[in-house]
């Protein structure tokens, strides 16, 4: 059973607001990932981290930013949310070149 948590599960906000999506894992995994997924579609990697103080942009360009100050915590921030940011955001972690464990996701709606 994977122990990876995301909060909030659902978020509805107005345009221009700053938001932070939280992701935490208790498995001690070095690698963590953020994906963006539209309903019923594939996952697009937007950020990843191979350890503390290491962050890289993924294959899909995103206006969001991430930080990795602690191994277990990988928050994603949008400084000024727009309707185009409406999507599901999934966080995952892994020990290496191997299984990724996913959190339940945050469904974000920007009005």
């Amino acid at each position: 059973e994977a122990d990876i948590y995301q909060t909030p599960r659902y978020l509805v906000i107005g345009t221009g607001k700053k938001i932070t999506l939280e992701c935490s894992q208790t498995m001690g995994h070095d690698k963590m990932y953020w994906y963006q997924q539209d309903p019923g579609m594939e996952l697009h990697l937007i950020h990843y981290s191979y350890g503390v103080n290491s962050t890289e942009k993924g294959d899909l360009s995103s206006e969001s930013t991430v930080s990795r100050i602690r191994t277990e915590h990988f928050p994603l921030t949008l400084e000024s949310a727009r309707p185009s940011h409406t999507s599901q955001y999934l966080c995952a972690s892994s020990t290496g070149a191997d299984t990724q464990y996913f959190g339940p996701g945050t469904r974000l709606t920007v009005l």
Partner: protein
Amino acid sequence: TQLLEQSPQFLSIQEGENLTVYCNSSSVFSSLQWYRQEPGEGPVLLVTVVTGGEVKKLKRLTFQFGDARKDSSLHITAAQPGDTGLYLCAGLNSGNTGKLIFGQGTTLQVKP
């Protein structure tokens, strides 16, 4: 750029029928994983195939990795309503950096 093409994108069948989902690429992958995702949840790993030609079975699900490690298939025998969900294949890129390349997904609906 490595891409994975999944087909079909949508499948609606009756309980008891068999089905096969395909995942194809022109690129070689170190390994390939299949995930199942239910609405409002994150994907959950079903299986990882590593060796070309490998076949793995998980109850009524049979997974196969192509000999050249460029393609994979998922076959479900006697589908049940509980099999309903989004099935995603994901390939581990050849650089072995841990980054997964996901297919577009196959939405399966099994009607009772």
